[in-house]
């Protein structure tokens, strides 16, 4: 059974078509990396899947765990097991990190008809996850992402993922803006959460994150579609050769679609 099935997805942003017939299937436990040049539609894909406003799906379908994902509100998508690690996590002054996480977890549990956790049981859960993520509990007492460094914000995303235990985690350019130590910490966190039931969709511009999180599949997103799929060796080829060679096998791609080669 597939966890995620994206079929011929077309989506527009501000009237401009960005996704043009994207198809992809993800099975439980698999790690898929989606790479591609700037403007290929990588972040659009992450945003459409998580239900952000301003993205209009004009054609195609997305099924997640047997449900028609596109009919669900963002909070419902979270409750049925989807998690988006943001490229730019939002700072929310005045909302305590622990309070926020407990509200989120309990809202999800309520939606699923599960019992809500009282503060004792919640704190116990949080302490366990902190240990795994190697995060100091000082972070818990602060407002959500407020004044966090770039690395702390991304680690906080992974920590939230650990607490919320989604079925599918989408990492949207999680590596951007991280130095190598922060990148390793984030990757370790993700690896600790890998399981046969949990899938990952890693959206990235660079290959370097994949040195630490080994993907089962690598896809190239260009011109709004998946144009090439392979194993991790595809990522290495992209790292060495850039994207221009794709024009040979995909004459429909314009030069502009393949600009912005990885550094």
């Amino acid at each position: 059974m597939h966890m995620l099935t994206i079929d011929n997805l077309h989506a527009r942003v501000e009237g401009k078509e960005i996704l043009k017939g994207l198809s992809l299937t993800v099975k439980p436990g698999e790690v898929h990396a989606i790479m591609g040049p700037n403007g290929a539609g990588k972040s659009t894909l992450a945003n459409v899947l998580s239900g952000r406003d301003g993205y209009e799906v004009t054609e195609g379908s997305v099924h997640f765990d047997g449900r028609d994902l596109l009919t669900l509100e963002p909070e419902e998508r979270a409750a049925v097991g989807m998690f988006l690690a943001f490229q730019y996590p939002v700072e929310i002054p005045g909302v305590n990190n622990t309070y926020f996480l407990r509200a989120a977890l309990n809202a999800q549990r309520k939606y699923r008809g599960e019992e809500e956790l009282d503060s004792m049981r919640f704190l116990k859960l949080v302490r366990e996850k902190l240990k795994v993520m190697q995060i100091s509990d000082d972070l818990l007492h602060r407002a959500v992402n407020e004044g966090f460094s770039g690395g702390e914000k991304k680690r906080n995303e992974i920590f939230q993922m650990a607490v919320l235990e989604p079925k599918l985690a989408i990492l949207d350019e999680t590596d951007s803006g991280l130095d190598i130590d922060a990148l390793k910490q984030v990757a370790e966190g993700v690896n600790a959460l890998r399981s046969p039931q949990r899938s990952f969709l890693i959206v990235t511009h660079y290959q370097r994150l994949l040195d630490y999180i080994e993907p089962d599949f690598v896809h190239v997103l260009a011109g709004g579609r998946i144009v090439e799929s392979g194993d991790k060796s595809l990522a290495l080829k992209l790292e060495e050769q850039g994207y221009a060679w794709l024009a040979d096998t995909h004459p429909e791609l314009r030069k502009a679609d393949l600009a912005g080669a990885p550094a």
Partner: protein
Amino acid sequence: MTPVPSPFVRAALDAAATVPSSGIAWLDAARRENLASLAEAGLPESRNESWKYTPLRALSQRAFSLADAGVANGIAVDSAAYALPGVDGARAVFVDGAFRADLSSLDAGTGVSLAPLGVALATQPEPVRFALANRYRRGAADAFAHMNAALALDGLVLRIADDTVVAKPVHLVHVSSGAQADTAWHVRVLIDVGQGARVEVVEHFVSLGEATQLGTVVSDVVVREGATLGLAVLQDASAGTTLVRRGHVRVEAKGTATVHALELGGTLVRHELTGELVGDGARFDSRGVFALGARQHVDTQLEVRHNARDTTSDALWRGIADGRSRGVFRGAIVVAQGADGSDAALSNKNLLLSAQAEIDTKPELEIYADEVKAAHGATIGQLDERSLFYLRSRGIPLAQARSLLTLAFCRAALESLPNEALREHLGELLVAHLPSGPSAP
């Protein structure tokens, strides 16, 4: 020339005619003088800059008779109506402006004198005399101040002796009973915090029924050298209540006054708060939140006057307007010549939760001294879409996400209230008051 009085002023003049003599000649004279001033001034008009955003045309057509003290004394009031967590000290309760000895407990310990105005006049008239007879001279005040001076038959005098630390907060309760429709009540408050003394006062406005009353409260507060006053104001009146409150807080050398205000109720509310720093090293901090909905109109006029050296003020106010409500905020900082070393900050941020709501905010800065630090800013905005989406992406439903962000927006203004139990209660009241769902179109 005295203009033709509006129904509002006419009713006040008629009401005054029914008031018996106080038996104190100077007091009767002061009341007469204020009544004449009221007739002369009439209600402020919109061309008056200070009332520009709070039109009184509708109010000027309403006629309020004077609430009857005899009736007020007979109204049954359940203490649950005004019980507050963390506020368990002495208490003075006024119902429709009449002091209710049976609901009050005036013993606040050694060094504290808490008395209704009548008792204070009988025992210690001189300090009261100055406030009542000289405070609002002709032309120096507006209609509401004159009205209060002419018609406030009751009030409260709180005196804290030098170096007295009052252990428990003093609770001052104004109840609009709802039993006397279209009546007005007026209360005069005098607070004097002696040198080096410390006290926490909670001023509380509640309604019993759907009151359609007008209430005015004029307070004069003195914080003497090295004294500390914490004043928390909770205004939770019913939707039909009109309230005009004027508070003047004078802070002497090295004294500190801190005001926290939460405005939730009322249909038309005007809150004028002036902090005057008259001694070197004095401090006046103010924090406030108004959360409005429906057709409420709440107008806050804050003025901080730095008249001495090395004085400090910090004002942090938040406003939320939903429905067709209107919030008005004017925050003025005036640093007088010679008040060098003053440090003044003012921040007013507002959230509009519906397209029909309106907020007018106006920070003002007047500086006549040389070495001064002053910062002020005002903003009006909406809930941040990115923050809303972030919360929803974690599973928090839209309505809860909105409420969480709105509360967070206000939190900065309430979090510094030292009384923890009261602070939490105010937070809960605010949450209960916030719109829980998407705002109506």
